[in-house]
Every structure is written in structure tokens, then in C-alpha cells.
């Protein structure tokens, strides 16, 4: 076994091109748990990505509204303004990840590469229709995050490809993330959801985590809520919100495992959806 610590993306993809079986290591918060437990024992090359400077920064283009986030940007960084103001749901999701120690190490690219259905950043990337730029020694391609996440801890990354950055459109409109776990901190989601409103397009997007093999977008619920909202006042009826919660539950395909039952997850994710709807819009008849 050998360990490489490249400092440029060019060096990293060249190494990966020469060693297609190499293991990529980003923040280590998932991979090192498996290695410490003996569930994973790298015997070829490990390429550490945490010192690749190309991956460690983000930028915002005010002309297009596009925010480009390097795969090595940590949750701690995503919680700080000004990126937290551009992408509030991503900041909110990042704050629910582990502890300060975990958020200092864990990265958005690592979250995507691991592709756990419980990855806290992933419902946000799905709701905001992120694009992901993948780089290899022979070129690069950009694909939709919806096409990258294909199953439980499975992505459509090809051998030799590294997640370079994640591109999101900053939007006008409320966005937020909600999560249920067995306690308030240091917890893996039992169910999670990201709701993002696009007020200029009069659309809503909701994506669910931990209630299916990968992140789920709820097209029926999105269309129902967008049609029910009075966009001139930003209000919505209470019945429409409960119907929205029901459609969110119906879109989920949870399993029963050691963390929760399928029934609880299906119920909880609908509650989360309706709660996010209440935060996004004013409910008609609610006294403020």
C-alpha cells in the first residue's frame, strides 16, 4: 500500500489514471471508519484529496447566479457567509452533520462520492438540480446530480474520474433542510428533506433523504404545492399543506433497518415536508 498526497487536480487525476484501482480519500469521515473497523483494507494506492488546492475553494458568478463549489469544501466552510447566504439550505444541512470535528473534515464531494441515502448534503443538491463536473486524465464531463446518484452508495462515476466541483444556481425564494434523527446532535438522518422555492419561476422542489435507496425527488408533491400557493401573497391553505405532506410520504420508498422502521420513516418524511412548507409560505388562517 502507498499513500499519495497530491496538491493539484492534474496530479490527482494522472495518479488515478495510472492506478485505476486506487482509493480516493477525501475528509475520511466515512472511509476511515470502515478502515478502522477492518471492513476495508486498501492494499494498492490511496490518493488523498484533502490537499488538492483546486478542490478547496468555491466561487460565485453574480452575472449568472451560478455557485461553483470545489469537491473538497468542508461543511464548516459551507456554514459561513457569504456562501451560507447564497445557499441557505446547504448551510442548514451542513450544520446538522456530526460535530465540529466532523464538519471540519467532511466535504461535499466526499458526501457525493460516498452517496449514502442519508448523506445530508445530497437532498439539497437534488432539490437545487446541481450539476457535477467530473475530471479524469483524459478529459472531463458535466452531469446532473440526478444521473450521478444511482443507488445505495452507488454513483455513475467511471473509473479514473474524480468529482471536481458541484455547480448550483442561487435562487430567489425560501429554502431549507429538515432532518429527523434519534437525538438532536451527532446523528445520521432517519428521514430528511430539502425544500427549495423558486419564486421567480413560481416552482417548488422537494428532495428526500434516508427514505429510499438514494435521494428522491417528489414531482407530484412539487406540482401540487406550486399550484396551491398564492404566489402574489406567498400564502397557502392548511389543507393544501397536509395534502403536500401526504404526497411526500407517498413518494418515499423506505426500508426498516436498525435505525428506524419503514412506517415511521414514511410518516416522518411527510411531516418534515409539511413543516418545511410552513416555513416557506404563510399558512392562510394562521394568526401571526
Amino acid at each position: 500500500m502507498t499513500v499519495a498526497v497530491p496538491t493539484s487536480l492534474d496530479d490527482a487525476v494522472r495518479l488515478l489514471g495510472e492506478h485505476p484501482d486506487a482509493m480516493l480519500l477525501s475528509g475520511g469521515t466515512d472511509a476511515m471508519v470502515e478502515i478502522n473497523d477492518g471492513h476495508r483494507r486498501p492494499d494498492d494506492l490511496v490518493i488523498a484529496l484533502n490537499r488538492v488546492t483546486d478542490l478547496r475553494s468555491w466561487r460565485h458568478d453574480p452575472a449568472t447566479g451560478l455557485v461553483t463549489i470545489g469537491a473538497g469544501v468542508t461543511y464548516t466552510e459551507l456554514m459561513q457567509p457569504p456562501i451560507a447566504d447564497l445557499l441557505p439550505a446547504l448551510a442548514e444541512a451542513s450544520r446538522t452533520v456530526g460535530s465540529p470535528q466532523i464538519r471540519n473534515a467532511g466535504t461535499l464531494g466526499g458526501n457525493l462520492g460516498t452517496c449514502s441515502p442519508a448523506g445530508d448534503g445530497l437532498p439539497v443538491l437534488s432539490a437545487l438540480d446541481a450539476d457535477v463536473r467530473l475530471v479524469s486524465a483524459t478529459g472531463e464531463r458535466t452531469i446532473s446530480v440526478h444521473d450521478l446518484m444511482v443507488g445505495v452508495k452507488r454513483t455513475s462515476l467511471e473509473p479514473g474520474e474524480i468529482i471536481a466541483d458541484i455547480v448550483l444556481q442561487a435562487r430567489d425564494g425560501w429554502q431549507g433542510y429538515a432532518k429527523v434523527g434519534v437525538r438532536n446532535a451527532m446523528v445520521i438522518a432517519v428521514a430528511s428533506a430539502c425544500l427549495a422555492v423558486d419564486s421567480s419561476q413560481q416552482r417548488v422542489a422537494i428532495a428526500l433523504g434516508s427514505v429510499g435507496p438514494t435521494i428522491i425527488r417528489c414531482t407530484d408533491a412539487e406540482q401540487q404545492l406550486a399550484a396551491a400557493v398564492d404566489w402574489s401573497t406567498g400564502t397557502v391553505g392548511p389543507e393544501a399543506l397536509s395534502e403536500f405532506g401526504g404526497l411526500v410520504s407517498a413518494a418515499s420508498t423506505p426500508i426498516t433497518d436498525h435505525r428506524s422502521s419503514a412506517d415511521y420513516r414514511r410518516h416522518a418524511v411527510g411531516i418534515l415536508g409539511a413543516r418545511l412548507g410552513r416555513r416557506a409560505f404563510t399558512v392562510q388562517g394562521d394568526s401571526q
Partner: protein
Amino acid sequence: MNNQIFTLRVNGADHDVADSWLGESLLDVLRDRIGMMGSKGACTQGECGSCSVIVDGSLVCSCLVMAATAVDQEIVTIEGVAPVGAPSDVQRAFVDAGAVQCGFCTPGLIMAVHDLLERTPEPSDTEIREELAGNVCRCTGYGRIIDAVQQVSVARTTMAEGAR
């Protein structure tokens, strides 16, 4: 690149690490190869925080850092916080407030509290609880740990005002 032998910079001094399995965590290398036993290992999955160290200015769980990837970085462990016999203000406050019982979580907590007070000099109790969520203590019930953090915060603020 074959780094069977690599060098880690810990508390300002270089340490050559030989004969380790390269997948070993920084925690294991600190304790078993370098002989610094201050950082504790309990969960080895980033849940308990007893292995907390500072790497290039960031508080991290050393059990989740592959040691060989931490070359050319500045690592600070509990041994580097203060010389033996001259404890830091946080260490003294932990003793004074009764925040140390069995002591196993203490090194990680001391690292986390130093880091917290660097970023947030006057934290609320809620902020302390949230910021220390990654450090598990099974003895104290956390009340005295929060007291210790507040003592340091007050003392540092008072000292800063006195110096003005």
C-alpha cells in the same frame, strides 16, 4: 510515491514514523508509534471526540485522519497545549470546576474548548452544548464542563478589559 517512512510535525517537532501500516489512523500513530498517549481512543468512528487534535488549525478526530496523509501539516495534540506542570487556563478551569472525573474524555474536551473559545470568546450555554456535541463524557453530565468553559470565557474577557 512510496512513503513507507513518513514524517509528521507534532507540537512543533518532526517525528519520523517507520514500520506503520500506511492505513493507520493518526490516533494510532500518535499513541503507538510516536508514544504520545494523551489523545484517547474509544469509538474509532468519530463519535466520541476523545481523540480530538488540531490539524492545520482545524479541530478534527485523529481517528478519522489517515496518518500518512497528514505529512507537511501542523498537528497539535493535548501534549502541545501547555507544558507539564503549567496547565492552560482551560485545563485549570476544568480542575477548578470539577469537570474532570474519570478523565478519559478530558484531553479531547480541552482541545475542543480551546478551539471553541478561539472562534467564540463569549459563548452561550446553548452554543457550548452545540459546539461540544462531538465530545462525549459519561461521568459529569456536562454541567461542570459548561461551568468550566464559562469560567475561562469570563476570565479572558475580564483580562482583556483590564488590559484596555
